Structures are given as C-alpha cells and as structure tokens.
C-alpha cells in the first residue's frame, strides 16, 4: 500500500524505503520512515495529491506518491 492508495482522510505510517527513490527535498520536509501521513485532498484530475506528513502540508504528484510505502492506520 502506498500514499497513492489512500482515500481522503486516511492515515498511514511511512515504511522504510530505498533512499534512491525519493528526492532529498521530500525527506527534508519530513517524509521519513516512521512519520505519519494523512491524505487531505486529491486534485480534480486525480493528481496531484495533497498530504500532511508530520505536520507539513505539501502537494506531490501521483507518480511520487506511488513510491512511498505505508502501513495503514485504522481510523
């Protein structure tokens, strides 16, 4: 399961990932293993995705969201 599979309002915990798949900028913004992600909005054409990752509100494109593995938190 990845961020791209979340439904609006779902939360998950980021799993360990290969560092080479994500730009360093995303890590610096708090997209690190163990941090919580919530999907806030999906843009009308299903892309990009608007997430809250450990308090940082950012929009990322679907292709990147598909690379970030999660463990779904039951709400």
């Amino acid at each position, binding site marked *: 399961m990845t961020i791209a599979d979340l439904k609006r309002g779902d939360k998950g915990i980021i799993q360990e990932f290969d*560092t*080479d798949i994500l*730009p*360093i*900028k*995303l*890590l*610096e*913004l*708090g997209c*690190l293993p163990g941090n919580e992600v919530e999907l*806030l*909005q999906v*843009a*009308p*054409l*299903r*892309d*990009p995705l*608007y997430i809250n990752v*450990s*308090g*940082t*509100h*950012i*929009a*990322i*494109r679907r292709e*990147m969201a598909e690379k970030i593995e999660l463990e779904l938190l039951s709400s």
Partner: protein
Amino acid sequence: MVKDIKVALIGNPNTGKTSVFNRLTGLNQKVGNYPGITVEKKQGICKLSRGVKAHITDLPGTYSLNTTSLDESVAVELLLNRNAPDHPDLAIVVTDVENLKRNLLLYTQIRDLKIPALLVINMADRMSRKGISLDVEALEKKLNTRIALVSTRKNTGIDALKKLIENYRAIPASPCVDISKIDPPYFDRLAKAFPKEDQYKLWVVITQDVNFTRLQKELPEIDPSFRIKSKNDLKRLQHKETILRYQFINAVLKDTYTVDWLAAKGLRGTLDRILTHKVYGYLIFLLILLAIFQAIYDWSEVPMDFIDAHFALASEWIKDSFPPGMFTDLLAEGVIAGIGGIVIFIPQIAFLFFFIALLEESGYMSRVVFLMDRLMRPFGLSGKSVVPLMSGTACAIPAVMATRNIESWKERLITILVTPFMTCSARLPVYLIIISLVIPQGRFMGLGYQALTLMSLYLIGVLAALISAAILNRILKIPTRNFFVVEMPTYKLPLWKNVVFTVIEKTKSFVFGAGKIILAISIVLWFLGSHGFSEEFLNADSIVTERIAEEGLSENSKAFIADKIQEYQSTLRVGLRKSEGTVALTDVQDSLDLLQRELEVRAINQEIASFRLEHSLIGQMGRGIEPLVRPLGYDWKLGIALITSFAAREVFVGTLATIYSVGSDEEETIKNRMAAERRADDTPLFNLASGISLLLFYAFAMQCMSTLAIVKRETNSWRWPMLQLVFMTGIAYLFALGAYQILS
C-alpha cells in the same frame, strides 16, 4: 567608529521572511539581480541605535543547504564564501511557529557552518489559536542561541530583534550536530586531508549539485577521491544527515514545544475542501481571474487615459513655450512621449501585482498550482504559469513580471518566452479595424463571422503559447529539479504592508529596469519618423503647398472638410430650432466660411504631415521593406505602419491615419479611408487575403518594444528577447505569407 553589521536573512519559504525584512528595513531596500544570473537580490538597511546600521541581505527562500535550484545555491554560496562582500557577520533564520520542527532543519545546517545564527520565530500571534506552547528560555539554552519571538502581523518583537542584532557578538557560533557521524571513516579521511577546514563546510561543497553552483574559488580543491561515488551513495548519506538532524531537533523540542491538538483551530480544512473542489475550485479560480482582468482593464482605463491626456498636454505645452527647433521637438515628441509610453503601463502593473500579492500572501496561489498542475504538465508548465499567461491577455508586460513567482528557472523562462503570444489588449484596435474591413457581416450558426474571427484570434494566441511551451520544454536544456513538491501554507489574511511593498517594488523595477530601454527605442523611432534627408522631406512644406495650389486638396482632405462642415451645419440647425430669436443668414454664412478656412489650413497641415512621414527615414524604410512585405499582400504604406507599430501594436492605426491624412482618430473615418485604398491594379488593398494575413502577422509578431525591454530585464540578458523577436516575427511572417498566398 562602530562597524556596520552584515546580516543574512534566511529561512524556508512561507515563514514570513520577507515580512521580517520589510519590518526591519522599511522602504530602505534595493532589489536587483545577482550578477550574471536571474536570481533576485534584495538588500536593505536597518538602522539600529547609536548610528549602527545593519546591512541586510534577504536570501532566496530555501528548505535546506542541499540545493536543488539556482536560487538556493545563491544562498549557500553567500554563506560558504567568507571572501564574498556580503558574507554575513550574523545569520537570522526566520521560522514559522507552526512549522518550527521542519524550519529548524535549515537552522542546524547554518549553525554547523559556524556562522552565528539568531533564531526568529515568526507568527507568534497564531500560537494560542493553534494550541502551541513554547518555552523560549529553555529552547535558547538547548540551542545555545538567542531567540526573537515576533509577529510581523501584529508588529511585535521587532524591537527586541533589533536589540539582538546589535549585540550579535554575544551569539555563539557553535555547531549543532556532528556531521561525521553519518560516515565516520569517510570523514576521518577528509579531516586528515584538510586538517584546517571545517568538516561540514567541506561536506556542503562536496555535495553541491554540480549543475547549479559556480564553485567557491577560495575553498580548497577537493581531491576527486573524496567525491561521492554515485548519486545513490550521496542520497544515502544525505538521508542519514536528515535523520540525524531531526533526532537533534526532536530532542531540542521535546519539553520546550508542545501542541495541544484539541485547542488547535483552523480554517485550513474547510477552505481547502472548497477551494480545491473539483467544481467549485475551478469556478472560484475562474471568478478570481475574471475579477483580476476586470480590474486591469476597467480600473486601469481611467488612470491610463489621464496619463495619456496629461503627457499630450505636457508635450503641447513644451512646443508652445519653448523656441521651435530640434531640441524642443526632441523634448516634446521624443522624450516626453517616450516617458509617457513608460508611465502608461504603471496602472496595469500596479493592479496586477496588487492581486498577485494578495493571492500569494493569502496562501491561495499554492492551491492554484495544486488545481492546475495536471492540466499544465504536458506543456512543461505548472499551475504557477497560469496567472502570468492569463494576465498576458491584458498586457504582456505585467505578465512577464509576474513570472517571478515561478521558482523553477526553466519553467519561468518558458512562460516568459510564450506569454507575448497571448492576445494582449494592444492587439485589439488592430484586430477590430481589420476584421470590420475584410470579414463579411454574415452569421454562422447564430454567431457573426466577425465575432468568430476575433474569437479564433484569441484561441490562436493561446494555442501558439501552449504549443511553443511544449516545444521549448523539449528543446531547452536547462538543469531543473525534475520533481514536484509544493508546500501548501496555511491561509492568512494578507499583510497590507507586504502588498503595498510588492506593488511599489514591481513598479520601480519596471520604470527603472525596462524604462530606459523603452525610452531609448521610442526616441530612435521618433527620430526616424520625423527626420529625413531627401529633397522631398526637407522641402515638404513648399512641395505640398504648391501641389495643393495646382491640383487642389486631395480627395481625402475634401471629404474630411465636407464631413466637418456637414457636422457643423447639423448642430447649427438643431441649435437654431431651439433658439427663439432669428439669426441673420449672413452670420451663418460667415461662420461657415470661417470654419471652411480653418479646416483648409488643417487639411493642408495634415497633407504635409503625411508627405513628411512618407519621406522620412521611417518612410524610406517602409519603402525599403516593400519587396519583403509585398508577398504578404501589403504595400509600402503598411510597411511604414509595421515599422512604427514596433513601438506598440496599437500605433498601427494611428500611423495609417497620418499616412492617409484622414485628420481624425475616429475609427470609422480611418476604416472608410482604408476601405478605399487601392493597389496599382485598382483592386482594394484590404481584401480577405491581405486582411487575414495582417491579422495573423499581428497575432504572432513580437511587435512591442516594451515587452522586449521587460524580457531583457527579467532574464538579465539580451539573448532571450532577441530570440523572441526573431522567432515570433519569423513565425508571423510565415503564417502571413501562407495565408495571403493561399487566399489570394
């Protein structure tokens, strides 16, 4: 003598860094470019007590010192290079209390460069609403620095911040984390090779993305064996560094920074749901755009007319009150008209930036990017290009300036290059007059052919912009970050001070940055249009008066006089009918004679003006390019109008009015005159083929010196505006040629 303090203001985007800068410096600021590149350089002076001044450099917003863009590497370079003239004695790191954790990442990096770094925690006024409590004293101890808790909105804490700047020597320059922990053997080796150098500084130099930096000359040449083997190794280490820093930050913030989520209130969720909704989101954006254009068109009209009228008056006044001669003409028709041509843009620029500043300040602009990203992606653009492109339908000049908000240089350049294709309002007078001349009145499916043509021209503009963007996206080889991460800041009420500063700063930047180029070109155009060396030009007065004495006035002039007389008679008749008394017939006849004589003098002057323009340098150029424009269906008179309208497209109509000596700016009169214009073979000059060809020429050609000037200003080089001029005019020529050859 107390030394002035050099201060660098640095921080993540959206932390209110610019507000802090504005609060500290007031209007004592200078905006320019870093030499050779297009990154904006903002500097200002903050007056402290006892006559000490702080020279503050507002560095581009950055999330960390691991740079991924030119803007960020400018910040890094200034911090690394101790020999740089602006290398700071003190760094002020601006953070936002809501995002303190993330903002501290950059702070720890700056501290590790051993630069004294003062921490500013901004937006303190939001703390209680967000349920945040902060133990500033404990935090100061843990970070071993001084903290200024400020609110730029409520203007609190700024004086305390100034005090801290004054006593900058008390701020320690100790590092926060030990970078060598991320790979001890590697850093051991590094330490042995460069015993004098600071490890983190070396690390930053090594990891700079080579695409972006012009490496610091004063730093040691780093042996290639220290280069990180692969991109993956580098990322692995940077990943470790990031985790290390967050560990430090979490430890620091534990006990000192707490958020009571239950107390936190916010509109963010609700507003986001509405503003990024798949229907309402677009609808609201559309409404906002409409409001902006309405403002640019309607609100600007009054000040623009005012400026127009007063510069014309000033020009008249100079001609009347100075002795006639070359100098007076230069002043009245060259310089004053040229300055008028610059000032006329100010209302549009001010209004557009007023709105853009509101959108940026409120946080809405990020939502636009979010909404439009998927739509603009195929063209290599993002949502940030939408506002400049749409503004281009009012005027390309403020639109090109509006691209400053696009962080990616490649995207910004593409937007700058394609924006002039959008149908600006200066094209409208040209379009309207030609359409009404050559497009029949008929209707197709209830829509007039003329309206359809106008609409197609707008569509052609949009298509040309998008298609060229897609092409440029492929061919421009500019290193750029190939990922998309947009921060969605909280919604805030805009700070009026920031909005006003933006408007002032943009206007200044246009007037002083692009103004001199516009002035220079308009003086050249004036000179070419009012000077000539041929016998005909020098003796224009006597030649024309002699000709009129022999052949009488031209048909145009006769028609002009007849029109005016008729107009006068009809008003007279209405007036007479209303008045009770009787007016002697001779009085009426006298007044008519007087008018007739007046009009004849005017007509003669118009014919002289027309004759002079024909034989001026521009006239000769118009004749010179005739072989070039004949395949497009134009004659030399249109050639002249093409050259003069390089100043601005709408000049086309005025030039034709002068050449045809119609003596009136009324569109109807000029149109009738144009309709009567014949070629050598007695066919009308303006037919469907030549008309469409002209329309297409104006749709594509870069006929606007002010746009070129502002592109030069914004790209910091002549290369891009020249490229634009050549390509757009080339495309215009080809389309016009094709249209005329096919249709005729």
